């Protein structure tokens, strides 16, 4: 099998939300295979998960200058190079949990290697200290950073999908109302645009038109969000359970 190291990927930080292509179990399985589309799937998987992996690494005690290298190394060596993708199946549980556990192990391993290298005497032998077997010190909360990046990734992709669909369908007004009334206020703290302002801007004759569009687009966005989450959970009950779990984990136990 050709390793990912031998086939450099055009991965770049922050390039996770381009396009509307979905990476689901099918794409992950395809990426791990030797099919004719596997290279394309591998690149899509790598791009998609870069920010999530990078968020964990940066909060794990790896210095900023090396964080991108460790992220790239994980993607090349573990996510694509070893059998992580092949071992990811719906039966084995959530891909999110599998990915986080793998990133954690890899990052700790990298930190230990770096610490060991910095202590290695010129004579070439290493004394194993008692406390070297303990956990590597980390700053911040890498798991929380990973989960936050995961949620942002899901929301960004749902947002891209709804926007592209709206613009393709000639519904620029619908997207604008959803974005500036609901999404931007949630994601950036922007002040929600008033019904009256939308009526003026889009020449709408009544407030109920705005109310109907807001509700309709919110439903469409939620469906897209569930579709993104549903790529790893087949049924809607599992999606709801996953959302509840995410809310507990990122919301500081509000549920």
């Amino acid at each position, binding site marked *: 099998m050709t390793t990912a190291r031998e086939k450099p990927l055009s991965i770049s930080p922050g390039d996770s939300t381009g396009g509307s292509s979905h990476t689901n179990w099918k794409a992950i399985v395809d990426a791990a295979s030797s099919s004719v589309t596997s290279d394309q799937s591998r690149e899509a998987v790598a791009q998609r998960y870069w920010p999530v992996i990078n968020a964990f690494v940066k909060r794990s005690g790896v210095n900023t200058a090396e964080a991108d290298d460790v992220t790239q190394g994980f993607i090349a060596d573990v996510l694509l190079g070893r059998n992580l993708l092949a071992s990811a199946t719906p039966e084995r549980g959530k891909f999110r949990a599998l990915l986080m556990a793998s990133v954690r192990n890899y990052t700790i391993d990298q930190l230990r290697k770096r610490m060991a290298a910095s202590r290695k005497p010129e004579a070439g032998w290493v004394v194993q200290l008692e406390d070297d077997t303990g956990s590597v010190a980390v700053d911040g909360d890498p798991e*929380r950073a990973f989960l*936050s*990046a995961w*949620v*942002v990734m899901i*929301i960004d992709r749902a947002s891209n999908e709804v926007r592209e669909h709206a613009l393709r369908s000639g519904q620029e007004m619908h997207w604008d109302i959803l974005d500036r009334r609901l*999404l931007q206020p*949630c*994601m*950036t*703290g922007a002040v929600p645009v008033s019904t009256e302002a939308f009526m003026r801007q889009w020449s709408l004759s*009544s*407030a*109920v*038109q*705005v*109310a*109907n569009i*807001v*509700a*309709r687009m*919110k*439903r469409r*966005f*939620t*469906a897209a*969000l*569930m579709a993104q*989450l549903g790529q790893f959970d087949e049924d*809607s009950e599992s*999606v*709801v359970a996953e*959302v*509840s779990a*995410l*809310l507990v984990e*990122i*919301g*500081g136990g*509000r549920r």
Partner: protein
Amino acid sequence: MTDPERTAVPILEWVLQSGSSPAITLTTWIAKEIEPSAVSAIDLMVDPKTPCATLLACKDAFKHLTLDGETVDDRTLGAVYYAASIAAAMANHRTRITRQSSHALEHAFRNIWIDESADLRLRDIAWRAFFTLRMGLEATAD
């Protein structure tokens, strides 16, 4: 993007607010646009404390849904809730908020109350509105 741990929460909660029926989810969110504290469209409409002005807004919003809904379910539910908002004003405030004829209203109210699949609270409000109409107890909104 600022503090995703905080800002993503309300968006994720939309998933939990979604019911098994997309049409009912839509009417709930329309109701929340009219009255942000509303639990659902039915809760908002049948509450005796809901003012006539709010029921009038519900009537207009659900009429719009009847005419412009994306799916048959949306339009059907829009028609039922349109009639229910008129019934709520009539039953709870003895006020007519429409220019529809009494005959048309009686027909619409009866259709709701004989529908065994409809929410019991809607059936009750439709029955009480029918009674109010028949007894000539209602006034006309200004």
